[in-house]
């Protein structure tokens, strides 16, 4: 079995990361009743003998002693990381996994990438090496960050670069939170576009997330609960937004519900690599099947169901509803409608008591309403994992490589150009050592090229279907 290391950068990255570790512990606690350190646990946690202090050796088998997250927490301000270290998760991280500073990046990608990058490079590499050494077989780095700020965006993408240089064989999955239109950070378009260039060039897979979508999902759930339709019959710990049953006992912070959704995304993404099933789907398979061309590696994700009712009897009708929901606009984690755009590839990872016939029935049912690119008409990657998430009897994660990401990128480009044309705030960036005008022009060019690739695919969509002629064999 392989291991993964999570690198959480900046305020957003660390807040989401914190929810991830909390929910990961909850998930493993639910499955692992005997308290034995097993291979599934080892994918995200080390088992450390802390009797002689924090520097104890790793224990590879037997009872769980002290679980330590395979993580690196990076932030150029101390507030968020300090809070994590004082909270219920403090024992999950050891001080050697943290890199913090005091003054933050001032919402400036250049400060994060060039200044702090340079300053902390060696420190970061050393800590990454240490984390890698603790792994028997490191398969993947998960980076969690936001695009609109300075640290997550700038330093986060610096780390991405580093990972490619130092660990070229290890997959790089990036969970990026994109800024919304009404983002209160004025320079978020600059930061995002500068970061996009790095994502284009150095990430294996990117899972874009938009706060608006998370917010809408949270609201939808609140409405359902408060409308009295479900009332007390909803299983509290089944809410995709909930921290119930996890270590967190303090009052929930406003972003917690939204961040739990992203945490659940990562748990579901890795579930088939950690737990057994009749058709396993490992992380390297996700990258292999969903990335037909190197730069088109942006995957739109959706999670269903958002909650489970307490009466667990599951008629297949409810199961089918879960599949339908996965393709509906309001379950996507970015503002996009994959149903009306073009699919390059689609992956479905089902957890729980779902069999291949349920999967097939639903694919057959939904296929006619979806548009797939001509060279990938049956482009489905499927996985069946036997272990359901906490509080559910089954769940579905859909990952789509779909041209519906295009509007997000176009909007980003537009917002960037609005500022750039007036050269607004540019001096904050250009005054940083290593930053030049060309950084901006290259970045916007990279984004434009990406948009153009999606445009070409969309354009070819309506055209007549001419299958290329086959090789002729002399009889």
């Amino acid at each position: 079995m392989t291991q993964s290391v999570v690198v959480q950068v900046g305020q957003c990255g660390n807040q989401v990361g914190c929810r991830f570790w909390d929910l990961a512990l909850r998930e493993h606690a639910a499955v692992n009743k005997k308290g034995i350190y097993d291979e599934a646990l080892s994918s995200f946690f080390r088992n450390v003998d802390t009797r002689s202090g924090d520097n104890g050796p790793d224990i590879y088998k037997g009872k769980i002693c002290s679980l330590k997250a395979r993580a690196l927490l990076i932030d150029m301000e101390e507030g968020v990381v300090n809070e994590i270290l004082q909270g219920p998760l403090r024992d999950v991280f050891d001080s050697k996994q943290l890199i913090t500073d005091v003054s933050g990046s001032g919402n400036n990608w250049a400060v994060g990438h060039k200044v702090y990058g340079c300053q902390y490079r060696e420190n970061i590499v050393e800590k990454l090496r240490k984390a890698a050494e603790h792994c028997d077989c490191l398969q993947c780095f998960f980076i969690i960050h936001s695009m609109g700020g300075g640290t997550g965006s700038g330093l986060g993408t610096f780390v991405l670069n580093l990972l490619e240089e130092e660990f070229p064989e290890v997959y790089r999955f990036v969970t990026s939170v994109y800024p919304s239109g009404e983002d209160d950070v004025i320079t978020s378009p600059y930061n995002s576009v500068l970061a996009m260039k790095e994502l284009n060039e150095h990430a294996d897979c990117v899972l874009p997330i938009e706060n608006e979508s998370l917010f809408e999902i949270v609201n939808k759930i609140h409405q359902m609960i408060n409308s009295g339709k479900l009332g007390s019959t909803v299983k509290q710990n089944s809410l995709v937004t909930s921290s119930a049953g996890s270590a967190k006992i303090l009052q929930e912070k406003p972003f917690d519900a939204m961040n739990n959704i992203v945490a659940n995304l990562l748990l579901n993404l890795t579930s088939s690599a950690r737990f057994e099933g009749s058709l396993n789907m490992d992380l390297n398979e996700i990258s292999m099947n969903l990335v037909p061309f190197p730069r088109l590696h942006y995957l739109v994700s959706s999670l269903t169901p958002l909650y489970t009712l307490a009466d667990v009897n599951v008629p297949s009708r409810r199961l089918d509803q879960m599949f339908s929901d996965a393709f509906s606009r309001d379950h996507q984690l970015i503002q996009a409608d994959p149903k009306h755009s073009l699919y390059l590839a689609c992956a479905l990872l089902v957890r729980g008591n779902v069999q291949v016939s349920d999967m097939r029935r639903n694919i057959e049912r939904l296929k006619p309403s979806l548009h797939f690119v001509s060279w990938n008409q049956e482009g489905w990657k499927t996985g069946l994992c036997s272990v359901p998430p906490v509080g559910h009897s089954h769940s579905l994660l859909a990952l789509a490589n779909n041209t519906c990401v295009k509007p997000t990128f176009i909007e980003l480009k537009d917002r960037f150009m609005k500022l750039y044309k007036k050269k607004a705030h540019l001096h904050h960036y250009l005054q940083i050592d290593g930053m030049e005008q060309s950084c901006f022009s290259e970045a916007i060019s990279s984004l434009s090229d990406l948009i153009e690739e999606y445009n070409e695919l969309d354009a070819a969509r309506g055209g007549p279907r001419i299958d290329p002629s086959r090789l002729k064999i002399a009889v």
Partner: protein
Amino acid sequence: MSIVTVQLGQCGNQIGHEVFSALCSDIRGTHGLCSKKENESYQESCKERFFSEEESGVPAARAVLVDMEPKVISQTLSTAARSGHWKYSSHSHFCQKQGSGNNWANGYCVHGPRHKEAIMELVQKEAEKCDRLGGFFTIMSMAGGTGSGLGAFVTQSLRDAFPTSFLLNHVIWPYGTGEVIVQNYNSVLTLSHLYHSSDALLVHENDVIHKICAQLMNIKQISFRDVNGVIAHQLGSVFQPTHAAGGGSGYSRNPLGDLLEALVPHPEFRLLGLRNIPQMAQSSLAFSTFSWPGLLKHLRQILIANAHMEEGIDWQVRPPQPGSSIPSTNKPLHFNTSIANLVVLRGKDVHSVDLGSFQDPSLYTSWLNPQDAFNAWKTPRAFNKYEKSAALVSNSQFLLKPLDSIVGKAWNMFASKAYLHQYTKFGIQEEDFLDCFTTLEQVISSYTNL
């Protein structure tokens, strides 16, 4: 003679487990509706063929388990051991930590050479345990990365290390609508490579087996376990012991050799399909009776009309009129021309069965004498609780359309160059793909022009 099975990848290991499970449960079952002596002879023969004796007394499957990640093998080993009736030898498995990622090139170019020695050593050990080695049976899917890519490499290695042994590949063809997006690429690469090193490819298609589960077995929520169970039953109905065709009293000693001799007269034609009748839910078995003429009539029409099971057969399809020389383009539509067929009959009154309808020359191409084109194996010992059962292994146009479809879809994707960077990264270039397409177009052309 014993057969060594090599289980490759998740699919290969899951199916392999079901096969040994089915074989074991069959020989442990009730007397099989024959004499005690017959039954004992059958059990001995099956044990020699598929299991080795261990000190613990629990028979160990003659198998090597290979996978690039540990979860499936670990499950397979423990499930077998829990049965209490059979198990896998404790040191017959090889696994790594990270899978092949559905990447044929990764399986073939990276994992293959890297682990060849270790895997072949396990195979050698298993082969040495056999008093007489009857050949190798590999189980793999062609859609993924390990079974397909590493499987192709291992097949080649087996051929190199055991040049005179029989080598039969059992290949699972994936559901048409995706289990894996790059499954058509992986399939084209696998089939073309196997064609060069294997003696024959025995094929099961997931879509077909799924239909059997849905329509004949009446299973509501079909799982891979159900699908694999049907596959195991079909394989068992061919490879459990039968009497030598010559009529000698003992069970035949060389099943793989006999099968290949019967069905593969020409190296260009190696694709074998499998059909089995009857197939039904265990619960309905007790209430059903069958007659040999009825079963064989259906089986023959399944062959001629290229049907998948005993329901939905097109009875309109007829063989071409005998006597007139008909160019292949004028043959009746949908008629399935055979090169050679093998029928395996098990159960009551087997020796009185009339198989003349299968020896009809109009079913076959003209190359072989009809007597040589058709073979039958029999045993009065019933299989897996079916009072009478008949299996058909056919070298015919059964797989022509599915093969053509897979090659077509792969070619379509190849023309757009999608996913190619994932393969070139590990050493499979565009020219390698072209070679494989050429090989398969040749096979398609050959089977079309029967």
